[in-house]
């Protein structure tokens, strides 16, 4: 039999949105099959139908192993041999690592949970993934990246015939990605089919065999990665050619507008790091998972207590005890975890856009919904956000579009200094490019940007300077002329004595 999985003529309608319109997908045993498409193309929706989380509209059919496949919940899907890593992370924060790995398929001995065996197996799996956490650690104490790795471990340790990975690498760095690929290759050898969703072009070409492309809920086509090149693939996805993936707009670099000196966090996750950024400059911060980059900017932003450190905005020393203080100085922080610190998921697009810059949406001191809507619509347009309207509940948007809402809500406040922590996480190529251009235009207007990213090509593409951190310390800096992947990686993995 040629296909392990065949989805034919699948449609799905949400109120106001036709998320999938008669699409198809064929997956062969032992292949890595990429799903690609812009944000909101319907990739996650298609996979959730496969998992039994959504019910598809009437019509269409799904064949698994040649037999009709009918599931109404994830348990049935898993029993059939389909597992999934979800795009929106689903950790149970108050449980330990080993409990999370085995949730829903607990190991048993004499009918009871076999805690010891679970811990042992978890330990093994964790080590194989190159993760350094104790299986007994609570997930609440881990970083987003570590949680993402736990999700990966959880899915690949299931005995499945098809594993769906919905943007598994959005929060992790190259080193972990390589380890993940190792696992994928081993699974392939065992004949397991992988459905791989990612917006990172390089990954698609290095690990996937075939690609299916979707656009606006429509099926565009399928091809093998050996026959397609990046340009063709992008064209299939966005419907037009994109030549420069990392456009760099030239801007005049002026005086230092923001400076943080010797930042030490009270919890010692950042151990004395300084940084400064100039008007018109894009400063990148690179490093491996756990380097403490997020911790640094969150400390600067007043989200955590600092035990030492001085912050200067436009040369003036400012005292920061809460985000409120630093926002008043014209600084913005697009945080790493949109679900936890970015969005009000139960609120509408309007509500979220108005969260920071509400003062800009007033008439006679009162909140003007019309103004808020116009502002939302402006950014929906500017950032190409796919939503039926500005009144949509943000929780219903696709992952990438949610990320764009976070960016929009901060940009509306018109900040002078913009700090972005993994801003392109889960964003499609076209939209990434839009964001780079947007950042470029901002620095042209005399603003300053600090961007944390785990994608080194991205940093090298648009930054003027890259600072690298390692284990909570500053480990070096590279200027645009000296950019090289090796240089940055060396600094990132510098062993401190």
């Amino acid at each position: 039999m040629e296909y392990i999985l065949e989805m034919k003529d699948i449609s799905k309608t949400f109120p106001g949105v036709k998320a999938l319109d008669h699409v198809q997908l064929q997956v062969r045993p032992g292949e890595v099959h990429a799903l690609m498409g812009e944000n909101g193309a319907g990739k996650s929706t298609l996979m959730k139908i496969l998992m039994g989380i959504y019910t598809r509209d009437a019509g269409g059919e799904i064949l698994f192993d040649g037999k009709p496949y009918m599931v109404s919940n994830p348990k049935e899907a898993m029993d059939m041999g389909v597992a999934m890593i979800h795009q929106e992370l689903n950790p149970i924060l108050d449980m330990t690592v080993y409990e999370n790995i085995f949730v829903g398929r607990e190991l048993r001995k004499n009918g009871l949970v076999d805690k010891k065996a679970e811990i042992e197996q978890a330990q093994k799996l964790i080590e194989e993934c190159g993760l350094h956490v104790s299986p007994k650690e609570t997930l609440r104490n881990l970083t987003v990246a570590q949680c993402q790795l736990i999700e990966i471990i959880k899915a690949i340790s299931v005995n499945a015939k098809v594993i769906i990975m919905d943007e598994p690498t959005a929060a992790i760095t190259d080193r972990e990605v390589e380890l993940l690929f190792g696992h994928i290759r081993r699974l392939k050898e065992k004949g397991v089919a992988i459905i791989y969703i990612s917006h990172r072009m390089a990954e698609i070409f290095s690990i996937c065999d075939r690609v299916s492309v979707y656009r606006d809920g429509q099926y565009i086509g399928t091809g093998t990665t050996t026959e397609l090149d990046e340009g063709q693939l992008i064209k299939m996805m966005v419907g037009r050619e994109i030549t420069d993936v990392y456009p760099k707009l030239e801007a005049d670099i002026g005086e230092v507008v923001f400076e943080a000196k010797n930042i030490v966090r009270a919890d010692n996750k950042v151990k004395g790091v300084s940084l400064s950024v100039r008007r018109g400059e894009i400063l990148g911060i690179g490093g491996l998972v756990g380097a403490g980059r997020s911790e640094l900017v969150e400390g600067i932003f007043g989200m955590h207590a600092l035990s030492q450190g001085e912050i200067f905005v436009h040369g003036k020393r400012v005292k920061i005890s809460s985000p409120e203080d630093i926002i008043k100085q014209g600084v913005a922080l697009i945080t790493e975890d949109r679900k936890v610190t970015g969005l009000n998921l139960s609120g509408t697009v309007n509500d979220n856009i108005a969260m920071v810059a509400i003062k800009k949406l007033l008439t006679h001191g009162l909140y003007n919904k019309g103004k808020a809507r116009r502002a939302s619509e402006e950014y929906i347009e500017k950032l190409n956000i796919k939503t039926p309207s500005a009144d949509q509940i943000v929780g219903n948007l696709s992952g990438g579009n949610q990320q764009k809402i976070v960016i929009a809500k901060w940009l509306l406040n018109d900040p002078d200094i913009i700090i972005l922590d993994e801003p392109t996480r889960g964003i499609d190529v076209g939209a990434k490019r839009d964001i780079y251009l947007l950042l470029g235009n901002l620095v042209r207007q005399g603003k300053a940007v600090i961007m944390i990213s785990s994608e080194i090509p991205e940093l090298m593409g648009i930054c003027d300077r890259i600072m690298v951190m390692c284990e909570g310390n500053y480990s070096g800096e590279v200027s645009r002329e000296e950019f090289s992947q090796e240089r940055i990686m060396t600094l990132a993995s510098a062993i401190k004595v």
Partner: protein
Amino acid sequence: MKEKSRAKSLISEYFIFVIFIALVVVLTCLKPSFIQPANLVNILKQASINGILAFGMMFVIIAGGFDMSVGSTVAFTGILAAMLGQGQYPIFVPLIVAMLGGLAVGVVNGVGVAVGNLPPFIMTLGTMTAVRGLALLISDGKPIIGISESYKAVAASSIFGIPMLAVFLVITILLCSFVLSKTVYGRRVYACGGNLLAAQVSGINTTKIRISTFAIAGLLAGLSGFLMTSRVTIAQPTAAESYEMDAITACVVGGVSMTGGVGKPWGVVIGCLLITVIANGLDIMGVSSHWQKIVKGAIIVLAVLIDVKGKSKKR
């Protein structure tokens, strides 16, 4: 097609309203005197105190909290008001003192929750018990009698046939709706309840916002206490037992989400009318107290069930 789906989504948003109308129609058929003006005035009066409490509660719940103490606060402030409302001071003195008393309880709750990081349930359960004790203590466990005629007149009088109590309710509704939907403060209340951390990171002083929502609930409980004493002409330390439940029910029935961030003032108005109409309807039909309990419980659950199902059909 698009028109139709829009009409559908409108109906599903205002579904509880449809349920409410249906209930009114049923009650009218069963007992025509239900719809008589005299009884409608009764309903307005009966809805007032719970309505005012529910609006305070709405702020707290939308901001992600929960307040068990409002019933006790009504009793406590009612006693304060009765003590000062014996005619020795102008009528606004008991009003102000009652509202300040309520405010104080609310601020204590808010500080406990927002600064002390206590779960709202436990914090307000604590004040619920303690404030009830306080009410008993200052009244020595006995009802306070002897309030002045002008104080009694506050609740007993009407303007153009509309009872004063209802006027207070309407003012509260208008003010609260305005604050929630039109002011920066109101939007921030939603933001706090929707995602506290995100609100904080967005530069909102969430501590202040959360304290203030409890303060509003307390303030309105104080107002209710003042009105309660005027309505029943005495102040009982045991009054308003479990009124917080009715207030919370009105909110939830009206579509305010217990997890915070979601809820519309008009929904709470309907929720509160629904509860009052059920009690009033059962009373005038002469249903025995035992059956009333069963029926009331069932109707509330059914109303919310139909509402939830009506909304989710949309998907």
